[in-house]
């Protein structure tokens, strides 16, 4: 039985964590996501979930590492500068194959930047801002409802693949209110994973959580294993949304909040008789490469729109592989593009193509 509420994105996400039976949250305040920690500090006692304000993001991510090693459902959230500080820890978590949920409510960068919404951390999230070859499963919600759903889904994926999952959202989604259907309260973890560090019973060998292998050939094996896992994830976990793509001649591609603005732009375009569709990658890793490649065979051109200087567009171009022109329109530093502006850019860039 689910309940409909009007909630702020950050609070909805925090509520979803409680409902999903999350066992512990470790985090450090930073705008525009502090409501996550604040909400949990208020309501997590409902399930007895551990909520700890860490002394820093570096401590927080390493707490996530430690707690995740016990096989429980662990999460943290932050925003851009804080996520940067977590990169070493994330690389450790990915290598040690610990399931956990990370949330980045992106703000305008680089540097201290602004606290306005941005998508400037796509590269960091998808290519790996930390050192070495690893991948996070990255989900990009575009509604407050998805902020809720992806928490539950994120934990499930994290445990399915023993891999950290990142919800990549932005300040606007974190701060805005929308209707959400909440799912019923789920149990907290009671069964210990067999790989977890929970105390070694006589019946098994000791468990060790580590990301170290001092012998290069053994470290390579770990990497090969990780890469194989990422392949499986790419085969099974691609998520995307198509909006009026069927008869589209031009495609807008965008993730998260931007996809919604693109939809409005597409509506405006159709009002003008321009057949525009919107393609929204939901899983940024694994990226819907094949689907985009397929669509590229059907449309005349793509305009990728992002709240950054052009990041996901590289993955779009890799997917299109030269088939059709891929244009880009981006706003930066916390500025959100408007539907009208997107339409205008689209008309400019595809001046010839549009009937």
């Amino acid at each position, binding site marked *: 039985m689910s309940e409909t509420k009007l909630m702020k994105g950050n609070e909805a996400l925090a509520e979803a964590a409680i409902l999903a039976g999350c066992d512990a949250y470790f985090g450090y305040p930073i705008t525009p996501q502090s409501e996550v920690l604040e909400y949990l500090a208020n309501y997590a006692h409902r399930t007895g979930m551990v909520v700890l304000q860490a002394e820093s993001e570096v401590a927080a991510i390493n707490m996530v590492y430690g707690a995740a090693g016990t096989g429980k459902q662990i999460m943290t959230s932050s925003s851009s500068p804080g996520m940067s500080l977590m990169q070493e820890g994330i690389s450790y978590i990915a290598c040690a194959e610990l399931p956990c949920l990370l949330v980045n409510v992106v703000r305008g960068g680089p540097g201290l930047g602004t606290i306005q919404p941005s998508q400037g951390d796509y590269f960091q999230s998808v290519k790996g801002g930390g050192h070495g070859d690893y991948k996070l499963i990255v989900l990009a919600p575009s509604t407050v409802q998805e902020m809720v759903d992806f928490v539950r889904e994120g934990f499930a994926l994290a445990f399915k693949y023993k891999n950290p999952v990142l919800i990549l959202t932005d300040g606007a989604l974190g701060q805005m209110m929308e209707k959400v259907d909440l799912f019923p309260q789920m149990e907290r973890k009671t069964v210990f994973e067999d790989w977890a560090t929970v*105390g070694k019973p006589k019946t098994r060998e*000791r*468990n060790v959580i580590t990301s170290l292998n001092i012998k290069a050939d053994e470290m390579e094996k770990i990497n090969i294993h990780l890469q194989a896992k990422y392949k499986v994830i790419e085969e099974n976990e691609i998520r995307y949304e198509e909006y009026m793509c069927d008869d589209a001649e031009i495609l807008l591609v965008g993730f998260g909040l931007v996809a919604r603005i693109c939809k409005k732009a597409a509506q405006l375009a159709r009002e003008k008789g321009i057949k525009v569709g919107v393609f929204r990658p939901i899983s940024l890793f694994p990226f819907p490469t094949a689907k985009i490649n397929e669509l590229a065979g059907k449309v005349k051109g793509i305009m990728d729109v992002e709240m950054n200087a052009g990041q996901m567009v590289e993955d779009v171009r890799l997917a299109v592989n030269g088939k059709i022109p891929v244009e880009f329109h981006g706003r930066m530093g916390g500025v959100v593009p408007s539907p009208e502006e997107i339409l205008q850019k689209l008309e400019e860039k595809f001046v010839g193509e549009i009937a």
Partner: protein
Amino acid sequence: MSEKTLVNEEQHFEDMIAEESICTTENLVYEKPDTLLDTPMHYCPGCGHGVAHRLIAEVISELGIQEETIGVAPVGCSVFAYNYLNIDMSEAAHGRASAVATAIKRVLPEKYVFSYQGDGDLAAIGTGETIHTCNRGENLLIIFINNGIYGMTGGQMAPTTLPGMKSTTSPFGRDVSTMGSPLKITELIAQLPGVYYCTRTAVNSPANVRRAKKAIQKGFEYQKLKKGLSFVEIVSNCPSNWKMTPLEANKWMEEQMFAFYPLGDLKVPNDKEK
């Protein structure tokens, strides 16, 4: 090696076998505990890490808490502690062992948790985590191996390196005017209200080994009683990077390190508000 007393050792052993051996199970008065695995340790000859490991293992074995204990190894020479201790363990990023231990303990409050950290780890890069873990009074045990140097990376200056002491990054000796004085982090930690027990020990002599073991044991016992944080410093050596033999290293430690880092309790339950 004094030639005069050295007898042919094979002959010697053969002689021993000839005698009636007293080496029987019932006569056994000391052997390494089960919790210490048989894997040969990678430490340099004479390194204090080995003794510290064994003491932890002894305490865990004697308290019968092997099944309930989770250890956290740092980045430092003891990064492989999990290869030697037969318990569940988590390796932690450099400096973050106490944050990792905090989290484990928070989600498994009934288990025993300890972190094992070097001076570079605990008192340089991990200073923030150390202070805050202690200040929160996390109910766990921190074992701090202070050898005055970065062992693993080849002998760079640590926060605890003594004044004038040479290291690869203080080749002319630690100059306190530019590099600061050695950081007595244990003295700082002892003052935090969250810290219940804080002591400084060593493993250079049989007597000190016994005392260090006792301290570690208390750390686990207080944890059982949910008293808060126990902090056990072990002043140790690093023969390789001090560029001394193990015996020279221990002598230097006794003369130089102990003078700066005096052994003894810094905070004991009766004297909590000291």
